[in-house]
Structure formats: structure tokens, C-alpha cells
């Protein structure tokens, strides 16, 4: 609930929440991957 409220996803429809969370997860995982490759 804190995640939904602070990112304002609380107001969105389920598919929009899923879309945004997937995007966020994709960004963080590529960042992690790049950091590993780089390091």
C-alpha cells in the first residue's frame, strides 16, 4: 500500500500498475546487470 500510495499507482487501473511496475523492474534489473558487467 505504501508503494502504491507513494508512486500514485493507487489511483491507476490494474493493467497500468502492472505496466509501470514491469517497466520499473526492467530498468532496475538492466541497471543491476550493467553494474555487474561493468564491475
Amino acid at each position, binding site marked *: 500500500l505504501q508503494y502504491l500510495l507513494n508512486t500514485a499507482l493507487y489511483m491507476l487501473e490494474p493493467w497500468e500498475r502492472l505496466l509501470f511496475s514491469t517497466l520499473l523492474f526492467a*530498468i532496475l534489473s*538492466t*541497471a543491476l*546487470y*550493467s*553494474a555487474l*558487467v561493468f564491475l
Partner: protein
Amino acid sequence: LNSRGVWLTYIILVFVLHFILLSIPYITTSVAWTLTTTIHNLCNYYLFHVVKGAPWETSDQGRARRFTFWEQIDDGVQWTGTRKFLQIVPVVLFFIASFYTKYDKTHFLINLATMLLAVVPKFPIFFGVR
């Protein structure tokens, strides 16, 4: 745009954009900075100098409808804090991008062109010019 935390958020959004680009494995740092600068300047130009009116119903009987976002800031008063901040960001991004691309000519020209696109319409002389 005068509210507390908006400028900081603006800077955070620019860095999040850069962070996203940087985390794509095949993009080098210089390309990431040039892409960051270019995307920022194009969005900045579209948002502040193309879109007109306000995204909500205003109580000014539609007066704002003819003005771009940039012209509506601080009721049109020039050289306010917010305007200076929005004027400086593209220039700072240009310097950072030039530095990280080691002043490569191609990158330099791309960054310069988009920086001018974002900075020139903000001059007071272009206020209300169509």
C-alpha cells in the same frame, strides 16, 4: 513550478532518464549523455513551447488557452527564479555531455543543436512570438 520540491524533482527526473539510458548494456557513456541531452531538450521544447493552455479548467475564462506553458509561468513575468532555472538546465546538460563525449565533433553538433532548440525560445525577445 514554484512549489517546493519541483526543481529537485526535475533534476531527479533528468538523472533517472540518464540512469535508464546508462543501464542499457550496449550504450556507451558518451552516447548515454548525448541521448539524455537530446531527449531532455526535445521534451523540454515540446512541453514548454509547443503545448498551449492549461491541462485543467482554469477560472480565467480561457485566457491561458493562447499561451504556451513557458509564457504562463509566473504570469509572464521574465527572469524569475523558475525561468532562470529552466533556462540553465539545458546549458549545464550541454557542458556535461560535451565533457563526457570528450568534445567529439558529431556529439558536439547534436548537443549544440538541441541545446539551442531548448534555450533560444526562452529568451524574453521571443515571448509571445509565433
